[in-house]
């Protein structure tokens, strides 16, 4: 079990999240995939905090979790407002700014 293993695992999780963001159209799943990517970054942070024997990386993950909680609350509020307005959570049908 080395730092490289941990960072590769974080990369795998980040890739899975990126796959969800790139190829799903349900906006709830896209938000969920963003959470997975944030967690992958947290894993890498803790791995390097362990490597340098320094707890600052863990404090950073603590802040990342705080920001993620705020982000999820606002993001889901926007999803609810969107659903009320357009009756859809399909990212392909929310394209007013593309026109």
């Amino acid at each position: 079990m080395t730092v490289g293993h941990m960072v590769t695992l974080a990369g795998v999780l980040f890739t899975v999240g990126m796959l969800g963001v790139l190829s799903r159209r349900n906006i709830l799943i896209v938000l969920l995939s963003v959470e997975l990517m944030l967690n992958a970054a947290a894993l890498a942070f803790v791995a390097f905090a362990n490597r340098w024997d320094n707890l600052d990386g863990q404090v950073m993950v603590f802040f990342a979790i705080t920001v993620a909680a705020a982000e999820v609350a606002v993001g889901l509020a926007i999803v609810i407002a969107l659903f009320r307005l357009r009756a859809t959570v399909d990212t392909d049908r929310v394209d007013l700014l593309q026109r």
Partner: protein
Amino acid sequence: MTLFFWIFAALIAGAGLMAVTRRNGVSAALWAAVVFIGIAGEFVLMRAYFLAVVEVLVYAGAIMVLFLFVIMLLNLREEDLQAMQGGPRLHVAGAFFAVAFLGALVWTCRRAGLFAEPLRAVKAGETSGVAGPLFERFVLPFEIASLLLLAAIVGAVLITKRRLR
């Protein structure tokens, strides 16, 4: 230790793939909760005990419950979910970027010699260990984080309100 690393790694990768491929939002959120529990396990292996507990409490507890609430509140019909299936073009593009990114990451790790560096922290990330830097050098960001949470609460309530006066 190494055995547990592989068990949790398999849990994270498998449950993550399940989470992003489920059509039903509820099962996707539950698979994501499994991912968070696996990450908490890896945190314990890296001696980040406080973060492991926070991960389970905040992510698997609070954030996933919020997700489940919203998924059940919207209550999407089966034909809506069916209509939202991404085309093969999206899947090919997603798979291409995924493989390219992962390949670049592993190559970089190998070049940087990270596969030869064992995990060997002496300091344990218990509550007291994390609280030390948090309340000394990072006390200003800590207070700003509380303001951020307050802004998020007010913002979420305002955005979901039907009519503003």
